[in-house]
């Protein structure tokens, strides 16, 4: 795929920060190298020496002095390397992206920062954006300054309707817009699971149809999936992600730990085609530099302590909790809000 088509001029202008790039020299250098290029403060002068976190299951995460330095010092923009590796392994395990070798994964300060940078990378004022309707207000806040031309796609109890998507795009001929850069839709935003605000999830066949349409019209799919781990039901029955069916390498996927580990730590991750993820990294290099290091180390240590089994045991427990909450909510709604048509979702026509 030709990715430059999707980039704004600002994004195309981005260059690597040489000083950040120079730290890569350290990796190949001889131990005799005297490195005086980085503007790092001396971590020995930071006042925190060590730490300990007790988990709710009674076990402890120990932050010994060397690990505390990792928590407190500048780190690489794409993320704390042990965590990046863990997340890559997890993503490969859960989604087996068909073009994994051409993809990259980075840690972001919450998944929404990744989404914000992805949209800022691709949307110029007045551009078209294809979104589910209704749409998550956070995404609308990101887009508002750009005054985009929305193509809102209606949905039913199974989410975005492929027919509605086709209809919205029908004013363009697919073969005419493949390489066109201006005045055509290039981005599609979707919450495939437990959509915010409707709570609905796209079944597999809809995802495949939507992917096919996105492919015909050469759209980047922004798969915003913060509720992935708290979908109700058995994990083996989860519908496949857009990432898992991404034969074209057109999906940028946003994952979050906010609903299962902590929202305040500000840790999420983005998976997508290398050329696009690289643009997000360049933006991060000159803005927040990287996701908070201590937060990344804590998540990494926790995942290491739990292993896959512990992690999924935890997500199952969170899922079960929210299922109980949902049932209680439905009961309350039935009791007080029942009436004709009060909370049915209209079918697509």
């Amino acid at each position, binding site marked *: 795929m030709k990715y430059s088509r999707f980039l704004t*001029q*600002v994004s195309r*202008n*981005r260059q690597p*920060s*040489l*000083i950040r790039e120079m730290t890569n020299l350290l990796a190949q*250098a001889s131990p005799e*190298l*005297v490195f*005086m*290029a*980085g*503007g*790092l*403060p*001396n971590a020995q*002068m*930071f*006042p*925190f*020496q*060590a*730490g*300990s*976190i*007790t*988990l709710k*299951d009674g076990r402890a995460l120990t*932050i010994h002095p060397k690990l505390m330095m990792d*928590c*407190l*010092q500048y780190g690489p923009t794409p993320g704390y390397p042990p965590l990046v590796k863990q997340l890559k392994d997890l993503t490969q395990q859960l989604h087996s992206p068909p073009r994994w070798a051409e993809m990259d994964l980075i840690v972001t*300060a*919450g998944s*929404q*920062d990744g989404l*914000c*940078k992805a949209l800022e990378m691709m949307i110029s004022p007045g551009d078209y954006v294809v979104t589910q309707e209704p749409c998550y207000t956070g995404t609308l*806040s*990101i887009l508002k300054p750009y005054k985009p031309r929305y193509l809102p796609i209606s949905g039913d109890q199974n989410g975005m309707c492929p027919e509605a998507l086709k209809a919205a795009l029908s004013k363009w001929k697919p073969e005419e817009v493949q390489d066109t850069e201006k005045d055509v839709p290039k981005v599609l935003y979707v919450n495939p699971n437990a959509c915010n605000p409707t709570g609905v999830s796209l079944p597999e066949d809809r995802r495949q149809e939507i992917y096919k349409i996105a492919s015909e019209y050469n759209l980047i799919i922004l798969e915003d999936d913060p509720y992935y781990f708290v979908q109700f039901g058995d994990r083996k029955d989860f519908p496949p992600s857009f990432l898992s069916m991404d034969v074209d390498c057109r999906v940028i996927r946003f994952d979050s730990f*906010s609903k299962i*580990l*902590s*929202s*305040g*730590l*500000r840790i999420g991750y983005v998976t997508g085609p290398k050329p696009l993820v690289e643009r997000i990294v*360049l933006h991060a290099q*000159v*803005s*927040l*530099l*990287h*996701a*908070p290091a*201590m937060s990344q180390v*804590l998540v990494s240590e926790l995942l290491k302590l739990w292993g896959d089994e512990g992690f999924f045991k935890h997500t199952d427990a969170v899922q079960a*909790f929210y299922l109980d*909450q949902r049932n209680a909510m439905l009961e309350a709604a039935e009791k007080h809000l029942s009436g004709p048509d009060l909370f049915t979702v209209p079918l697509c026509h």
Partner: protein
Amino acid sequence: MPNPEKFPFREMTVTLEGGKKLTLSKETLSAGLQYGPSHGYLPFRNQLKRMVEQWHAPPRWAESDLIVTVGNQDGISKALDMLLDPEDFIVVPDPCYSDFLCMLSSLAPQIVAVSVDDQGMRPDILQSALEKAISSGSTGIPKALYLVPNSCNPTGTNMGEERRQEIYAIAQQYDLIILEDDPYCFLQFNDKYLPSFLSMDVDGRVLRFDSFSKVVSSGLRIGFVTGPPPLLQGITLHMQASCICPPMLSQVLIHELLTSWGDEGFKKHISDICQFYKEQRDAMIQALKTHLTGICEWIVPEGGIFVWLKVLHLSDTSAMLLERGAKGDIVLVPGREFMVDSTKPSPYMRAAYSCVTPEEMMKGMENLAKLIQKEIELQSTHT
């Protein structure tokens, strides 16, 4: 909001230098793990406001506000996004902090580059450069002026009080927002604190960017911005849409630390780190004198972590450092990286003395002297 009962962390204790332990209360840890306000954790913001009022006594304090950002550089990045339309002018010192130039290269505004002397931006050059911009016929207007007044990156210079007042007066004349980027304000070796632009801001035109990165932790990603509420609002709205809020655990930890220290403890910590970096600077100057006298020129920095070196007999240092430096076992940043026009050759280099030992500095400067000699020979065989 997710239910924090399902977050797996129950308790957190950190050990400070000197062995004192800080245990976060249940409520505090809970605050650290949940979403917080976009402009910052309230107890922390209040604490910072008290400190800013104490240090700077801003003349328009009642009309100012303060927000927490994900490192001070994210605040600066969002301030630029907020202020600059294409065609607008921004004033920068030349040389300038390279990451700032990187930010500008994506937005591609018109740059008014102002040469510096041993105190930073020269007011006479600033004045004539702004006149030139205004009469250029451009539709854009000069909007902002960026500077690092203390231990400037990369030159290491401090801007004197009189010079600051001159620059402020020119900013008033041309109605510029002053972006005061001050991450090294606590790393001053002479116990002399020069008045900040914020402290002389009678108009409400200064956005001041503070950082904990050199003082408490760079990795926690916490900085703060002080200035007029309408401008802070612009940055906060962007924060809301992007990170949602600055990292809560980081804010909670720094808040607890500052509370535990009190003013006295904070002063002592600053005094300790200044002592450390002063000794590093002294060792660096010693190493420079030993190996680079007659080869390089430099100004002795009064604070911060950088020395700006000029090679006497080379017109450019880039190829030497980037292509041959690692083999010569010494890496510094080429001066060209910091010049507004990076196509022009530059005989300068930036050295950071923060993380190397005095022995490494001696060895490094010895290596540098050899590298420069080789480069001079290489250049002369080409001419």
